[in-house]
């Protein structure tokens, strides 16, 4: 086990190092200048800024400087939020995105999985069609439209929930629901497909032949096995959800991390983009590691014993 974790750790570090290296050079070859905003800076000032941030030095030298700082956990200062470090921006915005993400997952996971199970169990019946259609509608409406509609209906027309901001629990309802809807839809679909697969398995027949009740068969024989494919997608899904969603955060004015993913790259904020990429990558690697461990718990065939 220790050996396994150690090996995974080494692979993870190499992955992240390669990720950082590739992103670094990819980003730096992008045309454009990070200091330019719509207010034009003169060529002189622009060159001065490049020099100030060391961006005029040979790329390889910049790379080593960056890596050296990165090893110390220092991702540098944002080029846009001039006196805030990337670390501090992530530290202040990630908890908000993560909270929103966790809330949505807490709603979407149970409901999505339950709908998936219900739909698969009643395959071809009305319940199935309703679940499938609800699920498909969930993934068929772009989130920016869904978010705007929800806001318009519940906050502006019905006035039962706040329009935006991230303060009281009531403020979290709309963004959580908007995000949860699409997650739920995805989960329903995956769970349904997975359940349909499991229902066909021989061991389900065995369980039935043992005289177990339907409920018991579904609960202890089908769901557990059907969860395996769901687990596989959970790593990337949880990562991207916790990292924030640009659209929902924008519409509901939530100061999360999601907006930075878009703004930093379109604004060519090198350090911020790098920091986000590395943070995301590390998180994903870690999440996948956790998923693998969870995998071992759910599916003993791949339990880590070595």
């Amino acid at each position, binding site marked *: 086990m220790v050996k396994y974790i150690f090996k995974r750790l080494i692979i993870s570090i190499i992955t992240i190092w390669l990720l950082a290296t590739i992103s670094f050079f990819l980003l730096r070859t992008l045309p454009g200048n990070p200091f330019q905003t719509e207010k034009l800076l003169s060529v002189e000032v622009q060159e001065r800024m490049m020099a100030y941030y060391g961006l005029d030095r040979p790329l390889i030298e910049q790379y080593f400087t960056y890596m050296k700082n990165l090893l110390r956990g220092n991702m540098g200062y944002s080029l846009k939020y001039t006196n805030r470090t990337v670390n501090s921006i992530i530290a202040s915005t990630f908890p908000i995105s993560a909270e929103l993400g966790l809330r949505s997952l807490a709603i979407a996971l149970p409901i999505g999985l339950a709908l998936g199970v219900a739909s698969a169990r009643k395959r071809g019946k009305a319940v199935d069609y309703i679940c499938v259609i609800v699920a498909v509608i969930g993934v068929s409406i772009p989130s920016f439209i869904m978010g705007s*509609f929800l806001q318009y*209906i519940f906050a502006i027309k019905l006035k039962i929930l706040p329009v935006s901001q991230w303060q009281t629990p009531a403020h979290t309802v709309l963004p959580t629901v908007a995000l949860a809807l699409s997650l739920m839809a995805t989960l329903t679909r995956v769970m349904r497909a997975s359940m349909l697969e499991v229902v066909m398995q021989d061991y389900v027949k065995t369980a039935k032949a043992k005289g177990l009740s339907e409920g018991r068969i579904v609960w202890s024989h089908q769901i557990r096995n059907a969860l395996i494919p769901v687990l596989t997608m959970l790593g990337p899904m949880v990562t991207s959800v916790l990292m924030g969603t640009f659209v929902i955060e924008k519409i509901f004015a939530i100061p999360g991390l999601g907006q930075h993913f878009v703004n930093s790259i379109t*604004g060519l904020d090198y350090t911020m983009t790098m920091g986000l990429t590395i943070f995301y990558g590390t998180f994903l690697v870690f999440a996948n590691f956790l998923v693998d461990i969870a995998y071992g718990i759910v599916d003993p065939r791949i339990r880590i014993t070595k």
Partner: protein
Amino acid sequence: MKKKLSALLLIIALLCSVLAGCTTTGDQKNIDTDVTESNDTGEKTDTPSGEPKLADEQILTFVGHNDMMTLDVSLMNDEMSALVMYAVNEALIRYSRGEIIPGIAEKYDVSDDGIVYTFHLRDANWSDGKPVTAYDFEYAYLRLLSPETGSTQIESFSAVLNAMEYARGEITDTSQVGIKAVDDKTLVITLTKPEPFFLEEMAQGINFYPIRKDYVEKYGQNYGSSPESFIGCGPFVLTEWAQGSKITMEKNPGYWDADSIILEQVVEYIVADENTRVGMYDLGEVDGIYSISAVQTVKYSDSFRTRAGGTLQHLVFMSREGAVLSNKNLRLALSYAINRDSIVKAIASPGTVVADSMIDPEISLDGESIVEKYPASNNVHISGDPAKAKEYLNAALSEMGLSSPSELPAINYVCLDSPTHRAYAEALQAQWQDVLGVNVDINIMPVPQAIGSLLAGEFDIFLNGMSTGVAPETLLDNYTLHNPNNYAKWSNQEYTDLFNESMNADNLEERFTKLQQAHQLILDECPVSPLWLPGTAYLFRDYVDGIFYGRQTGSIEFIYAKILEH
């Protein structure tokens, strides 16, 4: 399960009914372009009849679209930071309601030769009670210029003696720079040569505030990144900065002019999505919206206000040898084909004014608009001149040896990635196609890449919006020979000579006459073509009295505002 399903169905049903509802109501409205004319003064509610009663609670809330980037005066260059800084800090002089008023400086003297400015500071305190001294200003200005700081704003001080030399690292001795605190209460600024617009620059600029050295030393590079790491001496104190979300300012009881400040608290929410902002306003969650787009004004046709100026949007035509638009007649054809008026009316924000020159008409000296006194114009009718445009096009085609506009090489319009720039680009593209049959390709890029293309000269047409500054030559300066900021790569010796003569002129009359000639020349040659001075629409409830928008960006003045009883 069933319950959940029925709940979902209910939601869907609700959705349908509400949306159906809004379709029918929405149909009756249409843009009323006349609205702008009746509303383009910034002081509509500023003329109260009688003495209106004040509300018990003096709290102003409004919603903006962007967070501020920093509170470090030396690094600051964005609108939203400037907006907050105006309230929580104070420079030597203030720009308010279109004029210069005293700030921390009680009074100032200008030497007879117009070179030495002496500011006499009043007894004012920082919000922690310590006195504001001339050294705080000296420190702030020198810090901004220092190569160690990495400021983008050094050019604000270009008139000051040796300021640029110090900023470039050519001299290191700060005593040679024309910024000098003589004692606690006296600051002397020495210019290189007389510059009548320097005071305007100081008043309207956003980087002339004082800085407390001990704070910078304590917080290092994090200075100004949070309410704790910043201190000001303005009428308000920053108490909360929830980044990306909310900014709260409280009245500063220790402000020297605290009596004229009525608001107790100002709250700014930061909301990126416009529908959300408007929704908050509708629900009464905020008293105002910092700026709203043209289309939203339709709903508030009798309550929105506008401001204009400060920026000139103009086309830059790539005029370098070998480029498609190096042909002057082709450039003129494009310029004459534009119906500026129809675009402004249909697309631009209310308050936008069609422009025919490269100098902002608001730039004035001693109350006289410079461009009105020394006029120059591109002579294009605001609705365009298709006949003349075609004449120019035919001339261009015959010069280029082509028989039809379809034979023209591809024309690359680099467009900033923003909804308004996109809308302008599409409108212009269609007009060129309709009037001239000239096809222009639009290439949308994020801001850094778009401006990268502009600087690298990798474009044929670029819609550039630049601050018109406080001096008339601000925009014209760039187009001299070998100027690195000559975006059009237009080389004209005569223009360069005229411009330099203007800059080196001994008296104002000569300066402006030469500038007028250069101005007319550039408009005739058309490497740049002025389009309009974009306006901004904003929305505040009627009970908010005393909001004023300045000419420059980020100069919303809420400090003297008050909430009327409602």
